[in-house]
């Protein structure tokens, strides 16, 4: 696990001192709200519907037991006893007081946590693979590169006032667990034929009002040139991205209007003119960062665990093992996914008590590591298979053993109108209703992989554009309505979903999802996921299921 050195610690301390001063100046009237707002946003503090919300970064989604306990403490001491894990590997506390924020940040710093650049028009927290260091198929540890980017992007003097927010994702596995193609920059690490590490550089993905899947502008950027190349991309964007219209300010609009080829050639021209050796990270620093992640002291074990297999005689454990445990690169270990989508609960929410249970369980069974996924779940990446039964029992006692990873009730939902000042409609109650509709775990397993994603407005924080089924809240004549989209994906087969038909009233949504699922079950071929069936048949059978009265086109 990466730890700060004296420089990293000083960086966060200096920032917290700066923000304490800024809060003081706001409260004493030296700063107006207009002047203060961008400053508080750059420290992750939003004014929401009911209160301030503090967004804390979880760099590359990696937590330790100690960090998780610190989050639990913040939830209890300064909030209402819970936190919300988001789709960008952050955690949000919904009830923070502005006047407490400097103390909260100082406390978080003691656990090497911060809220730096978790909002604002700057480079945000880098998303990475929650299975990093555990996945068999990865070519390198993406956390190392994410940490390289974290340092480079933190207080970058040139890129603090970009046209709009900027989000980068790094993955090193063929299976994309970061939604790389839906980020401003997606970096996919690969080895070329000579065995050299390099990045496929994808730019211009994003959600929001005009969703785009990113375009590849470089197939294989030699890994050692990452920082100079990122600087070139950001410089082109900072100079030429639109600033006249908030909705056209993301890099995706610049890339789309120039065309990916022209954008790439502008980046290349900038890159060629740079003093790259000054900007690129020296090997010695890369080695230092790599070393500071340390080695997990894996034990040598047989690949098959008799205890794990024996525990399968308990159907609840067997179901958990099938859905939530995936193979680890080390024989005898498993990657255990912890669902924050209990039936009828708030997707992504976690109470302080649960956080502490997770911290304890990770310490006991998982080398003290916990990861956060972009699907609002948690992961214990390194668990000996022998210990999974005990872990399962511990999770079950805390209400954290829902065996539904990647299944229909494993939904993403943004806070929506229950918290968010920008929302058109609520998202969480819709998720809860759907979850209850599919409460039967046997049926959920029969349905198989199905990704439902819900946003309370077109900003698309809930990723609805890339849901196999997406649900978007809209305000129709003063009432909450929901528009369904089908066929999206945020994974390596990324795609934007298509609108199914007219928006539905709040009480009709869960039923419509049920009909879509039944339509799928009726026509699916062996081994087809919902998404595959949709791609094969097109929208016809699904439209007929939800809008039986609509005229044939």
């Amino acid at each position: 696990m990466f730890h700060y050195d004296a420089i990293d610690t000083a960086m966060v301390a200096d920032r917290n001192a700066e923000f304490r001063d800024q809060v003081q100046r706001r409260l004493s009237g030296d700063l107006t709200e207009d002047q203060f707002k961008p400053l508080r946003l750059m420290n992750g503090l939003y004014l929401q519907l009911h209160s301030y919300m503090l967004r804390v970064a979880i760099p590359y989604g990696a937590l330790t037991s100690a960090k998780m306990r610190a989050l639990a403490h913040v939830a209890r001491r300064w909030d209402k006893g819970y936190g919300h894990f988001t789709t960008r590997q952050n955690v949000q506390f919904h009830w923070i007081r502005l006047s407490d924020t400097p103390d909260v940040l100082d406390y978080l710093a003691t656990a090497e946590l911060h809220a730096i650049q978790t909002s604002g028009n700057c480079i945000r927290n880098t998303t990475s693979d929650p299975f990093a260091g555990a996945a068999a198929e990865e070519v390198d540890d993406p956390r190392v590169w994410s940490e390289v980017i974290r340092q480079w992007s933190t207080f970058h003097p040139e890129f603090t006032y970009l046209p709009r927010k900027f989000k980068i994702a790094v993955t090193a596995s063929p299976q994309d667990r970061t939604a790389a193609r839906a980020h401003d920059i997606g970096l996919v690490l690969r080895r070329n034929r000579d065995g050299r590490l390099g990045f496929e550089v994808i730019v211009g993905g994003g959600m929001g009002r005009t969703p785009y899947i990113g375009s590849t502008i470089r197939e294989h950027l030699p890994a050692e040139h990452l920082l100079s190349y990122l600087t070139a991309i950001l410089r082109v964007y900072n100079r030429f991205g639109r600033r006249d219209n908030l909705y056209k300010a993301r890099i995706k609009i610049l890339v789309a209007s120039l065309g990916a080829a022209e954008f790439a050639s502008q980046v290349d021209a900038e890159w060629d003119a740079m003093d790259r050796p000054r900007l690129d990270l020296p090997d010695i620093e890369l080695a230092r960062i790599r070393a500071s992640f340390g080695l997990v002291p894996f034990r040598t074990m047989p690949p098959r665990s008799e205890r794990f297999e024996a525990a399968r005689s308990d159907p609840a454990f067997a179901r958990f093992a099938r859905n939530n445990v995936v193979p680890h690169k080390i024989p005898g270990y498993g990657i255990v996914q912890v669902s924050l989508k209990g039936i009828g609960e708030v997707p992504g929410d976690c109470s302080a008590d649960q956080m502490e249970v997770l911290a304890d369980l990770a310490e006991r069974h998982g080398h003290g590591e916990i990861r956060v996924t972009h699907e609002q779940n948690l992961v214990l990446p390194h668990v000996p298979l022998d210990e999974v039964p005990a872990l399962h029992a511990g999770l079950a006692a805390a209400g954290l053993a829902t065996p539904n990873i990647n299944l229909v009730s494993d939904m993403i939902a943004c806070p929506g109108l229950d918290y968010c000042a920008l929302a058109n409609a609520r998202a969480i109650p819709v998720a809860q209703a759907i979850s209850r509709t599919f409460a039967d775990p046997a049926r959920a397993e029969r349905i198989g992989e199905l990704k439902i994603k819900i946003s309370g407005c077109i900003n698309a924080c809930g990723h609805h554009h890339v849901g196999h089924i997406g649900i978007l809240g809209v305000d129709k004549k003063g009432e909450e309505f929901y528009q369904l989209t089908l066929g999206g994906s945020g994974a390596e087969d990324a795609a934007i979903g298509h609108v199914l038909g007219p928006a539905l009233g709040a009480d009709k949504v869960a039923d419509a999802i049920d009909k879509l699922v039944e339509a799928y079950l009726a026509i699916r071929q062996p081994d087809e996921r919902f998404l595959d069936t949709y791609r094969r048949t097109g929208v016809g059978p699904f439209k007929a299921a939800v809008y039986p009265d609509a005229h044939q086109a």
Partner: protein
Amino acid sequence: MSEALKVLTANDLAGGQVVFLSEAGWSDRYADAVIFDDAAAADAALEAARAATLTLADPYLIDVAAVDGLPVPTSYRERIRALGPTIHPDMGPQADGGVLVHALQQARGAARSSGRLGLIRRK
């Protein structure tokens, strides 16, 4: 058309909680809110709130309709804001319960006026 009713709201600067202008200063209870039926008075109060930059953030006026004699914000957004998150009935002012909280929880869609305001104070 019935008269246009308004309530003045903001967030408390230091704490962030939702507040409403009441007879006795700012209150975090919607039930305490002054109901304006005079547009000029409402605008004047808004101006004063805008000047109070040391204690308030983002003041604005919301529309209210008289529903069964009770003042209910016409938009569901403002009703949720006055109540607290609907998924946590124990959080926010809604936790107090009472007839007005109940009225807000019962209102659907764009609440429309169904008559005159009852015994509520107004300006």
